């Protein structure tokens, strides 16, 4: 039951609540309206940096327990594997000699073709420490930030089955952590090229890692030259991603009669459901934004 000394108390309370509601909603709506402007992004960056310090500390504790439990389990397995490895060592000695011969031959061939052997791309290794808090915005939190040389718009890759695949790009950088927009996010786009037939298109996500990526704007005349399983990689156009990073494999080709372009569904190279370790690329030609942190 509700009791009031008089009606005035109730009216006063309602007025106070209503005014507070109007003030908070108005502020939030204005913030939302201007949330693509740089000065609001600075507030986001500051707030993100502030909380990333706590999250990174908790990550250290979490990783300690996870690693300790894993280590105990693995110790038993390692004892058996040791014996097997000693036998394999002899075998690998022979393989190493063959590799040295092949490498020399490869270098000679590259010299003949005039390719540069200098690496212009630096790799910053990182670990995924968290994922998005809601299902509407896909984001991966990694344990590298400004302190480690990470900047906004740097591409992120990972290795899966021996192949380098595109994960996404850095969209927000804090002092110790960064946010990665994965390629399967519905806002993510990458200029792409079918590595076999060389036709170009644009790859985008569908908002979930359970859904395939979508390659669009590929001319219909390419239909006869595209097969299931063909690899799609970055084309390097636009300056965001360096060329040649594998994005996905062709899974399905959709040819609408009313369209002049094909719609191709891709299975990502990277298995995002099991992704743990990533590499941030610091390539020379990529356009980067300076972080204000």
């Amino acid at each position, binding site marked *: 039951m*509700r009791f009031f000394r008089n009606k005035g108390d*109730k009216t006063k*309370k309602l007025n*106070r*609540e209503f005014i*507070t*509601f109007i003030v*908070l*909603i108005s*502020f*939030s*709506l*204005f*913030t*939302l*309206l201007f*949330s*693509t402007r740089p000065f*609001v992004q600075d*507030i*986001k960056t500051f*707030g*993100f940096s502030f*909380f990333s310090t*706590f*999250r990174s500390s*908790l*990550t250290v504790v*979490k990783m300690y327990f996870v690693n300790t439990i894993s280590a105990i389990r693995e110790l038993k397995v390692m004892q058996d594997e040791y014996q097997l490895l000693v036998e394999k060592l002899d075998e690998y000695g022979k393989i190493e000699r063959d590799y040295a011969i092949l490498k020399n031959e490869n270098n000679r061939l590259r010299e003949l073709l005039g390719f540069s052997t200098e690496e212009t791309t630096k790799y910053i290794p990182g670990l995924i*420490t*968290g*994922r*998005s*808090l*809601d*299902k*509407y*915005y*896909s*984001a991966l*939190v990694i344990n590298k930030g400004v302190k480690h040389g990470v900047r906004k718009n740097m591409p992120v890759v990972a290795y899966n089955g021996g192949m380098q695949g595109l994960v996404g790009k850095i*969209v*927000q950088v804090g002092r110790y952590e960064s*946010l990665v*927009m994965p390629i399967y*996010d*519905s*806002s993510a786009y990458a200029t792409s090229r079918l590595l076999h037939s060389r036709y170009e298109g644009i790859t985008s996500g569908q*908002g*979930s*890692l*359970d859904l395939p990526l979508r390659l669009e704007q590929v001319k219909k005349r390419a239909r006869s030259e595209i097969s299931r399983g063909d690899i799609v990689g970055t084309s390097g156009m636009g300056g965001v991603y360096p060329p040649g990073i594998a994005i996905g494999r062709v899974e399905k080709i959709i040819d609408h009669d009313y369209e002049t372009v094909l719609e191709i569904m891709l299975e990502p190279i990277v298995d995002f459901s099991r992704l743990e370790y990533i590499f941030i690329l610091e390539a020379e030609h990529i356009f980067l934004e300076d972080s204000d942190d």
Partner: protein
Amino acid sequence: MIKKSMWALLITAILILFQSLLSPYIAIKTVSPDLALCILLYMALHNGIMTGQVLGFFSGLLLDVLSLAPLGLNSVTRILIGAFSGLFVGMFFIDFFLVPFFASAIAVILKALVFSLLSLLFGIQGLSVSFVTATFWIEVLYTALVAPFIFGLLNLFKPILVGGGKRR
């Protein structure tokens, strides 16, 4: 009211951090329960409109800062949910299961509705809300099932989170 809200906000921040870290282990088909929403509902249902909307504002702002969502999206949504939930303060007995379950389910649906409306009004890129996908209903059910446990956990801190002020 301020003290209760600050304590609730601190608990929200801690749960959000844990949710972000443990998401790969607790998610079902990439969907995690919305723990911050459960805390907001608890505070609004026990303390009223003022606490609900203030906590909704700050917890929404926190979520916006920590995610890729545009700043203001979650704060608008959670102000509305907090204020709406606060209307029902004192109207019924908050039991262990039924009230938290149904309140959370309705709150998740309301959240999706508000997101759809804001996406339409502000032309927010990349925000696609669908009521017919399995992931949406998994989120509704998962959050609703977790809510009784969150309410139970918060009941342990009832002296600092609830009461002390006038309610309707």
